[in-house]
């Protein structure tokens, strides 16, 4: 690890000013991803601006019936919050499906959104990787890519975004509040992360020295929501594929539906095609399967990850069918 300077800002504007004045610097949240990447030599900031003690640690009710989650709220506190659990169960389940109890106690909402891919080549500075060193190549495309993308990838990069939380936020129409040297703006969660295209080094639309202040949830969608994750172990493993969904069934038909996939792309994949197919359709397993297949028709699996397409389809059907059959116990497992 390279030596670095450290500062703890007293307020939001101080944090932004400190980073704006130091182009090689980075914000530090819980550090569970950044410190890891610094140890690996993947990140080598000259300055860390610690934002973990800024007053961004509250979850507040908003006037429109939603919630505002401060960027510094720890993942475990987010998952356990009574309003999140009662009104946005998919979000609570998604957070609890990620990492471990210890890591969730440390990880923050802002840091979770901005965590980097777990692609092996990205994490190994001895290997080429377009995301780490633009133009150096993408060994994953022909190499180890079983865990990587089947949707929206590019010739330059086939990485996936690893966050579980962000998949639920995408389905729940969350909005990210940002403040930078140029002022404040909001970005819908679905537009926050990027597809790799020919700039795989850019994971998100965040600009230099822009700080995530909060994530805002609109009032919960009608009906119920849930998150389900498929992984190689039953706990403490990243998603091979995951599904977040909200479903409102009226008189046997789909009145409203939100669906997002995780583990399939460079960003949480909001399944608008499937949603369009499902609105007004009978709430049956056949419709759910048809909708998932319509969405996944765009998949371009690599040599070793075609199984993800089928897995994602089946997960979507299971989650939607579970939401359509009220009374069933949902734990997210």
């Amino acid at each position: 690890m390279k030596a670095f300077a450290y500062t703890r800002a007293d307020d939001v504007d101080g944090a932004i000013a400190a980073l704006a004045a130091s182009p090689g610097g980075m914000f530090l949240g819980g550090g569970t991803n950044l410190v890891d990447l610094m140890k690996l030599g993947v990140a080598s900031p000259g300055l860390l601006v610690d934002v973990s003690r800024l007053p961004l640690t509250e979850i507040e009710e908003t006037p429109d019936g939603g919630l505002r989650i401060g960027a510094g709220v720890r993942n475990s506190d987010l998952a356990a919050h009574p309003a999140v659990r009662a009104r946005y169960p998919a979000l609570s389940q998604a957070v609890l499906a990620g990492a471990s109890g210890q890591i969730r106690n440390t990880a923050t909402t802002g840091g979770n959104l901005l965590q980097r891919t777990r692609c092996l080549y990205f994490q190994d500075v001895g290997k080429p990787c377009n995301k780490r060193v633009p133009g150096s190549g993408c060994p994953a495309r022909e190499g180890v890519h079983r865990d990587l993308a089947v949707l929206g990838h590019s010739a330059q990069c086939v990485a996936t975004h690893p966050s579980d939380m962000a998949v639920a936020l995408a389905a729940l129409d969350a909005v990210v509040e940002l403040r930078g040297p140029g002022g404040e703006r909001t970005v819908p969660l679905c537009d926050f992360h990027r597809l790799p295209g020919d700039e795989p080094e850019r994971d998100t639309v965040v600009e230099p020295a822009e700080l995530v202040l909060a994530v805002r949830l609109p009032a919960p969608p009608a009906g119920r929501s849930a998150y389900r994750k498929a992984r190689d172990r039953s706990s403490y493993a990243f998603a091979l594929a995951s599904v977040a969904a909200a479903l409102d069934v009226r008189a046997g038909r789909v009145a409203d539906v939100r669906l997002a996939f995780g583990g399939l792309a460079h960003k949480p994949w909001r399944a608008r095609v499937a949603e369009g197919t499902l609105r007004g359709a009978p709430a049956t397993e056949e419709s759910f399967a048809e909708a998932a297949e319509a969405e996944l028709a765009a998949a371009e699996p690599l040599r070793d990850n075609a199984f993800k397409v089928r897995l994602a389809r089946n997960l979507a059907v299971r989650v939607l069918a579970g939401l359509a059959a009220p009374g069933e116990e949902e734990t997210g497992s």
Partner: protein
Amino acid sequence: MAAPQTTSPVTLHVNGVAHRRELDHRTTVLDALREHLGLTGAKKGCDHAQCGACTVLVDGRRANSCLLLAVAHDGAEITTVEGLADGDDLHPLQAAFLEHDGFQCGYCTPGQICSAVGMIAEAGEGAPSHVTPLAAGPPGVPVPLSPDEIRERMSGNLCRCGAYVNIVAAIGDVTR
């Protein structure tokens, strides 16, 4: 321009005793404990938050000390496995690990025990896990620790000797 400052004075309150050291910013809480304060109870397994051997309690909550920068935890109250016993009286979890043979080589044990202390407190405050039914609650009511709950909540602590069955039994014993 002056060279940037890459060390800072850091105070860590470890097991009730304040320690002040000038530390390189790269120093993790784990390295501070082991290399600077001579407390080798917390172990270094992976150094990447993957194994749990370094688990300690920070301001009462369990965390992987290998990814915590000491400078970012200036002023924190830290409890390590050395701080759990009351004189010669073992902490109930320490006694239960002995009773149930909750280890083989013992390398993961300090992390397992610190993690279990934190985990039991979390469940006691009603914090859910991945296997807690959504209908559970109301909020704040302790979550009963079934073997499934213990396994899920302890999944961040690996044991290369595979002593899991006895670890779950030891923790279950204390929570019954």
